[in-house]
């Protein structure tokens, strides 16, 4: 039987072209954010070097989730890696605008935009 956290939040990590793709699903809050933080800590600085976080299936992000993304951006910059947020929708878009974080993250509509562009220019 799955635990509560797994019912409201899911994560998987894969590789596409030169990118590590971390896909989050569900509600990213104080309870579930530690799992995303752990996955992102593991992903920064290892091959593939650059990181795209797929938020297209995230229904809610709170201030803790935003903080985890800020920490990931800091670590990516320190490691010389790119970090892109993909597929944000609904209130997640609004929350980035309300906090001004949309000005500091590299944001794209779709993971495929990032990966396809990279594959095409490789």
């Amino acid at each position, binding site marked *: 039987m799955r635990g*509560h*956290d797994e019912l*409201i939040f899911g994560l998987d990590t894969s590789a596409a072209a030169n990118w590590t793709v971390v896909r989050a699903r569900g*509600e990213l*809050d*104080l*309870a579930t954010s530690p799992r995303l933080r752990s996955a992102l800590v593991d992903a920064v600085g290892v091959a593939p070097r650059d990181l795209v976080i797929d938020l297209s299936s995230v229904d*809610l992000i*709170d*201030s*803790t989730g*935003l*903080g*985890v993304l*800020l*920490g990931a*951006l*800091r670590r990516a*910059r320190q490691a010389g890696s790119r970090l892109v947020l993909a597929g944000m929708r*609904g*209130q997640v878009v*609004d*929350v980035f605008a*309300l*906090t*001004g*974080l949309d*000005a*500091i993250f590299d944001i794209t509509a779709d993971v495929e935009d990032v990966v396809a562009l990279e594959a095409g220019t490789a």
Partner: protein
Amino acid sequence: MNRAVELEIPARTDFLSVARLVVVAAASVDAAFGEERLDNLRLAVSEACANAINAQPADSTAAISIRCDFMEDRLEVEVVDRGPGFDPDNVPQLPPVTDPRRLEHESGLGLTLIRSLTDEAEIRSSPSGTAVRLVVYAADVGPR
């Protein structure tokens, strides 16, 4: 007619989703709130409850209480914890998000979100606990 819904949750993070679910379900009963307002309410309540949970000592058995008062034109939610309290007028100021030094801080966005997502937000805090009162109007008739 005014109605109220009261809820107590353990001060545990895995009960945050329960608080969100109950408050939004209660606010959805008479269809006064549009989808965007419900989304804002859901996140604001979640932030207030997260702060309340963080305020409790780790070994505390005290509950977080959540009371929703449904008025004709608005919903008022009060989230109360029994933590040690804080001075809401003396929260550390962090650099703006566009300042690279802001990346050194993963916290500090919760109160910003609460104030942005609600029509009114009031924090009363004392050494015996903190009460956060949120007001969301049913439509765009409330003060901004």
